[in-house]
């Protein structure tokens, strides 16, 4: 990147793409031709910057100016002002909500200040479709080191000592997993990358694949060398077209550079990677189900043992790691296990990427060191709760996780603490909820997902989750009983205890954690037929105050079910049996005579 005066980095992640970042790139390209800047300015489409809330993002180098919510029509001003005149376009800079000051450099923004980007190190920095940029950032150096050293066990030991644990949710020590697989002898082994990201709202794997595909290729080759596999397979959701495209480009480039194929780095190690497409079934993220799906069988889990390390893809020893796990490998090799294990807590080393979402100011993808507290994540990185509302709970771990309340805000985040608190790390979904969230509805939402995504193989998950969901449905309809609450607890416990795979064993977590932390809210639904958060439609009651109603008939005319009756100029009444709680009357009334109870 030597001769250019400026680099314009444009986010090419799926989110910013959806907000016309491709058009922004075209506009910039046309502008630099028009303004004769082709030799001075380089335009780079990068992977995700993470700050999706404020996308599309355009970043200017070398001065590190971070423009947010850029529209295609803003390009002209950026070129004319920033590049030609050297003045920052103030209105496109990030506005700090607390100080109400514009912040030009992302380093000074609350969203980035506490982040530590290891897995995402290249996302938003390099052009993912250009292997040279990856190589310029020490890409494939780790693979070269490992192959040169030619000692798989030594590399496995580095990974073991680094303390890296599986980022897909299970948290199993990665080095140990490799070691087990390396010790099983077979004529063929497989290194498999699990890119079947399925947690609702989580998109870290997609972002890594879109923003830094070479790191996965490099890590898989390192892993393949360590376990003795010459074939790699990436199982990726077919709904990730951009990630698939970038992977294909990266694979072609790697082959062209001799970084995949025969005799890598002049050694006798061969490694090739193929893509396998998933149809998006959540359960196929479970490693045995994933393997069956790749084999062309029904995507459902089987009992372990045999573990994939013993009998995996096509019955050969296989090792399955998640995308984010792989993304850590080359850095660990390059910077050393000592460096990596100095980050994080005693049993959880390194960083974790979270998809921060919900009722929070800064929605986006963040990477933080293990041990950071939920409070730091929510209030500093996330910028606090939207609209100044009160924090109620944060859901981590996706549909398998649980809801954590205020009392856990200062708990350092790591695998073990989250489990102790009744939730889990999962793949890193983090959904923040404010006081207007109904926790019964939240539990129901997650159950709906697991009911839909259960493979149907084992009875507790197939039928049990369905029954759990039906009970929650009854409760939100105001038809629940106290016996239902007992049934919920018993069923949830039995499903956890008896389900076949991780999906079923964790699916009741949202129910159990909300029952534990928000018992009163459940009771309110059942006993008082009230939803304290005011979310459950069936429990809302629209009432006309006869004192305030002047009998204008506006409400009666707008009611779609003719539930409102009354004579002109006399107070009207709502027939609760007919009312469908659409709220039309409430909006129509000019006299504030209608209230919601």
């Amino acid at each position, binding site marked *: 990147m030597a001769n250019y005066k400026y680099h314009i980095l444009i986010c090419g992640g799926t989110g910013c793409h959806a907000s016309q970042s491709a058009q922004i790139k075209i506009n910039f390209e046309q502008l630099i031709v028009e303004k004769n800047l082709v030799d001075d300015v380089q335009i780079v489409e990068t992977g995700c910057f993470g700050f999706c809330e404020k996308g599309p993002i355009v970043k200017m180098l070398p001065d590190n100016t971070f423009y947010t919510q850029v529209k295609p029509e803003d390009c002209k001003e950026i070129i004319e002002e920033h590049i030609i005149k050297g003045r920052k376009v103030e209105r496109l800079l990030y506005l700090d909500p607390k100080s109400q000051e514009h912040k030009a450099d992302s380093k000074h923004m609350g969203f980035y200040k506490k982040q530590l980007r290891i897995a995402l190190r290249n996302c938003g920095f390099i052009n993912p479709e250009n292997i040279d940029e990856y190589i310029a950032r020490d890409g494939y150096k780790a693979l070269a080191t490992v192959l040169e050293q030619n000692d798989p066990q030594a590399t496995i030991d580095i990974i073991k000592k680094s303390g890296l644990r599986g980022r897909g949710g299970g948290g199993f020590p990665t080095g140990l997993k490799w070691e087990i697989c390396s010790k099983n002898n077979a004529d063929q082994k497989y290194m498999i990358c699990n890119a079947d990201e399925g947690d609702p709202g989580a998109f870290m794997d997609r972002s890594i694949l879109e923003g830094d595909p070479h790191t996965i290729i490099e890590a898989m080759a390192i892993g393949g060398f360590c376990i003795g596999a010459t074939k790699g397979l990436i199982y990726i959701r077919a709904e990730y077209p951009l990630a698939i495209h970038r992977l294909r480009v990266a694979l072609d480039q790697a082959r062209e550079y001799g970084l995949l194929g025969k005799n890598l780095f002049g050694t006798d190690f061969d490694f090739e990677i193929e893509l396998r497409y998933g149809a998006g079934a959540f359960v196929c993220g479970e490693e045995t189900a994933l393997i069956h799906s790749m084999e062309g069988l029904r995507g459902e889990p089987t009992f372990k043992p045999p573990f994939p390390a013993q009998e995996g893809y096509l019955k050969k020893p296989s090792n399955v790691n998640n995308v984010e796990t792989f993304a850590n490998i080359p850095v660990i090799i390059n910077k050393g296990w000592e460096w990596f294990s100095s980050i994080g807590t005693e049993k959880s080393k390194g960083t974790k990427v979270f998809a921060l979402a919900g009722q929070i100011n800064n929605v986006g993808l963040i990477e933080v060191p293990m041990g950071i507290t939920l409070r730091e994540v929510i209030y500093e990185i996330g910028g606090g709760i939207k609209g100044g509302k009160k924090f109620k709970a944060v859901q981590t771990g996706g549909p398998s996780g649980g809801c954590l309340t205020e009392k856990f805000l200062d708990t350092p985040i790591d695998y073990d603490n989250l489990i102790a608190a009744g939730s889990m790390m999962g793949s890193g979904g983090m959904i923040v909820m404010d006081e207007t969230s109904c926790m019964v509805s939240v539990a129901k939402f997650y159950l709906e997902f697991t009911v839909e995504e259960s493979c149907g193989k084992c009875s507790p998950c197939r039928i049990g989750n*369905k029954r759990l969901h039906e009970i929650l449905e009854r409760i939100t309809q105001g038809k629940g009983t106290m016996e239902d609450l007992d049934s919920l607890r018993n069923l949830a416990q039995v499903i956890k205890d008896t389900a076949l795979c991780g999906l079923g064993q964790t699916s009741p977590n949202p129910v159990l954690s909300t029952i534990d932390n928000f018992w009163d809210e459940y009771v309110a639904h059942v006993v008082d037929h009230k939803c304290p958060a005011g979310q459950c439609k069936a429990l809302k009651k629209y009432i006309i105050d006869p004192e305030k109603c002047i009998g204008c008939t506006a409400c009666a005319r707008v009611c779609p079910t003719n539930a409102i009756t009354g004579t002109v100029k006399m107070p009207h009444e709502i027939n609760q049996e007919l009312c469908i709680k659409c709220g039309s009357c409430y909006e129509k009334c000019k006299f504030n005579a209608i209230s919601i109870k």
Partner: protein
Amino acid sequence: MDTIKLNIDNREVEVEKGTTILKAAQKLGIDIPTLCHFELNGLNVHNKPGGCRICVVEVVKDFNGRPRRNLAPACVTECVPDMVVRTNSIRVINSRKTVLELILSDHPNDCLQCAKSGSCELQNLAIRLGVREIPYKGEQSSYSMEVSPSIVRDMNKCVMCRRCETVCNEYQSVGALSAINRGFPAVVSTAFDQHLTESSCVFCGQCVAVCPVGALTEVDHTNRLIRDIANPNKKVVVQVAPAVRVALGEEFGMKPGSIVTGKLTAALKQLGFDYVFDTDWSADLTIMEEGTELIGRLTKYLAGDKSVKIPLMTSCCPAWVNFFEKQFPQLREYPSSAKSPQEMFGAIVKSYFADKINTKREDMICVSVMPCLAKKFECERDEFKTNGNPEVDYSISTRELARLIKISNIDFNNLEDVAFDSPLGESTGAAVIFGATGGVMEAAVRTAYEVITGKTLPKIDFTELRGLEGVREATVHVQDGLDLKLAVVYGLSNARKMLEQIERGESPYHAIEVMACPGGCIDGGGQPYHHGDADIVKARWEAIYQADKNMPIRKSHENPSIQAIYKEFLGEPCSHKSHELLHTTYFDRKKSIENE
């Protein structure tokens, strides 16, 4: 042998490495209930999905010395040294019952009308675990019932044990059934929910044989039969297959392997059939036809005729016939053109015998009692009809016959033995062994040997052809220069291997016997339910050979009644008349599946 010591319910047990908790507990006399688990030991049928979760147990101490987080399915969890297991803790009892209640919450509550009532494993579990209410009410699965010529599918009753899927795919390699949908609507069905007749189904009925509940049952003809017997204008003739006589007793509490031929005949007489005949008779006839065909093909083959199809494959098993017609139609000239004994019998009854008793074909009803469900389908084949009138009107299973006997107040256990009627009731030991795997081959060899050599067999028992392994081969020395290379297989996945070998031109055999069901007809889809007890099947198998030994004549060509019909009516084996009545042609049914 590596052994492992562990503790189950406070008792020590030592087991071989690789033993499951379920088996280890059985060793201590602890009977952990199961539902999806199914195994026919030694008969190549294994279903271990670990899916129903009824057999869960608590592992108090696992391999790491700590308690296991969740409960373990005993059927697939292997024992580890020093493991401590509780099979009856409150956690286990509550979980097991809750799981059962969940299964029942999506199961029709119609036990009293269910075809499986009394033999239902789910019903037995509910009784055993003392289910008195189903607390988890909610949506129930709703699928429409499907009736095919042999099998009734009522998937509302399916518990997703996957046994049917396993036998259909792994044991038979037919691939008609597999799980579809996911989550609550997950169920076992055909591809694209096709009707069974349009699928690759061969109607072997093994899915029915293993189904723990009433989701898969046979098409029931008992009422039709009661009406036909009651019709004074019809002459109703019955034939009974060999394997029925060694299994029917089980339905009346007799020990597995009881040979009840005489009582069976007596019961059929009491039911009111006009003539009680024996499929064994037409089994002897089959040997004459098929044996002659084999000798004919062999003679040409040994003379260097390359066009002749060798190996000859047997064609008695209707599921096997469906299989090669649907999956290997290009090889359909290898199986013998001889009809199955059931159809040979029907053809003779409705021609030779009808003339003999001076009755019009239309006024005769020919019914068969079969251990088989594919026989029901076979009756409906167009090529086995004359002017639309079937040779065999319909077939009932061993189970249906037992029901009929019960309905008709017949005290089966105390019946006096009665002999079959003449002339289609006389048979030999060679015919009765058709009921077990290898029997047809042995019967054929007994006759072929004597026909080819003109000498009396030195030893009637060809034990080298007997056994319960899925694939067996033997070389029988007939005379100098003629060593017959034979193979006997059961299970259509084994048959597939034979066909693939033929297709590659690598088959070393002169003749191959194929039966679809485990151990042959003794474990046919219409036999009394054994619920996975392989000892029952083995007892039937032994009984078949005992029945052979009990027969005064043990070679088909020595059956005087068979000799008579050739003299009187057919001329000689494979004559023009025989071909007309006793042989058939096969069709390419692959296209019809693919075009659906």
